[in-house]
């Protein structure tokens, strides 16, 4: 079918499709975003149709809200520890599994499974492992490493540690796949040349592997940061934000503020802060890592 040709004789090509995409993007992302921004300046409740303009009150309240500040602190701990652990372990696993035989392909598939599973399912599995009479405590008591079961989810410190472990477990799967793909794109000749030049294992890693996988590292680190900054599902299943709100992430607190405390406007301001924070962190990380890519 011939494409419609406007005056001037140039074909529209895929422009109409692109406009549809832009319209859908505006409808399903930009409109809710601006609506949320508008609500963040109101006292909107999920139960009331009407709301009043409150200016910056929601934003100023945030900085005197201990629960919000703690949620930011907790989220920060998870973001940093998960990003570091997932990328370090992910890279190590990718290097171990960077072979093309069937065995390694199976192992890579197994490692990717946590990423395929829903966060809710993963959290339920870990809940059965970490609970008082869970698999881990049964094992630790049986082998005599501990006398009494450890409260993995029952104290603020251990619950935070447990959340970091579970989220890392999920994210390691993703990082491993990204790093494996990056490693497989490194030409073997570069390693051979380095070997000829007398480079040992660490030399080859430092001067060949790291520069070549730098773009993959940027993707993996930035996506880890974004994923953990909006963490909700694992928290909801594993600890419900407890004990005593110790593991309440900012995203979890946002939902509580909106649908338990009925402070939709306030929750919208949390959403805006989280959005800006995610954008800033992602942009900064991308900027730093891209600069590093160029330096390497």
């Amino acid at each position: 079918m011939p494409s419609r040709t406007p005056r001037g004789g140039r074909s529209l090509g895929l422009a109409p499709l692109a406009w549809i995409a832009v319209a859908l993007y505006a409808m399903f992302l930009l409109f809710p975003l601006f609506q949320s921004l508008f609500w963040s300046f109101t006292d909107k409740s999920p139960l009331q149709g009407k709301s009043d303009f409150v200016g910056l009150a929601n934003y100023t309240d945030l900085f005197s809200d201990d629960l919000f500040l703690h949620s930011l602190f907790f989220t920060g701990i998870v973001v940093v520890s998960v990003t570091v652990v997932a990328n370090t372990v992910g890279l190590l696993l990718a290097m171990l599994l960077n072979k093309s035989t069937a065995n390694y392909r199976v192992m890579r598939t197994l490692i990717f499974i946590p990423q395929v599973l829903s966060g809710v399912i993963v959290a339920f599995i870990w809940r059965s492992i970490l609970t008082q009479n869970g698999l881990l405590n049964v094992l630790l008591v049986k082998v005599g490493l501990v006398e009494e079961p450890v409260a993995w989810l029952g104290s603020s410190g251990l619950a935070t540690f447990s959340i970091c472990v579970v989220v890392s477990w999920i994210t390691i799967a993703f990082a491993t796949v990204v790093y494996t793909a990056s490693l497989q794109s490194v030409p073997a000749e570069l390693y051979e040349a380095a070997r000829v030049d007398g480079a040992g294992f660490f030399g080859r890693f430092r001067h060949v592997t790291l520069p070549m996988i730098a773009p993959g590292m940027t993707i993996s680190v930035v996506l880890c940061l974004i994923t953990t900054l909006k963490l909700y599902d694992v928290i909801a299943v594993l600890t419900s934000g407890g004990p005593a709100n110790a593991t309440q992430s900012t995203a979890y607190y946002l939902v509580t503020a909106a649908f338990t405390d009925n402070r939709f406007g306030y929750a919208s301001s949390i959403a805006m802060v989280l959005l800006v924070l995610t954008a800033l962190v992602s942009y900064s990380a991308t900027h730093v890592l891209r600069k590093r890519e160029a330096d390497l």
Partner: protein
Amino acid sequence: MKRARTLFATAVGLAAALSLTAKYAKQLQASGQFPDVLSSITPNDFIGAGLLQPYDRTWLDDHFTDPDGNAIKGRSYIPPTNAQIIPMIFYNKKIFAAHHLEVPTTWDQFMTVVRTLGKAGVTPLQMAGAEPWAAAYPLSGLITADVLGENPDWVKDRYAGTVKFTDADVVAAVSKYRELVTAGGFDKGALGVNYNDANTQFLAGKSAMYPMGSWLIGLIPPAGAADFGTFLLPSAGGGAVVPFTTGGTTSVSAKSADVPKAMDFAKAWSLSRTNLKTLIETDGAFPMLKDVPFDSFGAKVTPVYTEAYAYVTGGARKVSAFGEVNNDDALPAGLVDQFNAMAQKLFTDSDVKGQLAAFDAAWDKAAN
């Protein structure tokens, strides 16, 4: 659920729309899809926005033993069809007998039981501390017994600002919780135990007592029911105080396309003896229908149920279970979650006054 939807659609000819949690109902309202009939919600959150239709006075008076059980400012948005006791203390009779213990009727006796069991290497009290709502039961039980037991209008007085959580009576009640914790009343890792594990441990005889809602009766296997009994947390003022919660089933949206039909369905659903029979057998619910003899439900119950039901039908003093009711004694929106978090915090934090002062501040913020 599927049956309920079908019945609803058939009965009122409307698009089936049921909501089963308060949070989900709020999400539906926020997205302009508020359902016609709702269940398991906290009406206090919704009536300010005019979203719920009150039941008519005559119908409530005609059918229920406590028509005002769920009343908020004189109007009821949930039919008071059944009741629960939250919490009551379930205990293992075999463990008590093995350690020559009697059911305690005073706080000192209760602490003696706790210490005796602890010294014998038995976990005195089970707690599903990983669930914030369950972690709060020992604390809410103490506040109900000692504070609301003395002044049943305490929550209304708190709304009026004439009492505070930092008052001596509340501090004393909450300090008892700390006394329990420091005396080894709970397993050290209790905050890591979820509800299912806690039930399993208690029913398997791995702990002696369990402060829990009366619905636990429905989980006790009939074959082993003779090993379990119930009692009420001893109050400071002496005598039994029943932490009473009038429950119910359906609320009706005031914004429904056909309010009268939705109301007809809700009324029929609430008075259904089949529904109540199921609730009695599986949820340990106590029926509150007027002039309907218990036997007419045809429910099979265990001796534990009969023992607990006596607190409802007998002369014991019933007061609103703190944080668990849907009437004028309900807490402001969001405060139940904060109370639950405080209960978890007090498991390791001995600063009772500091925690209560923070809760006072949270109350003032949420209620104003």
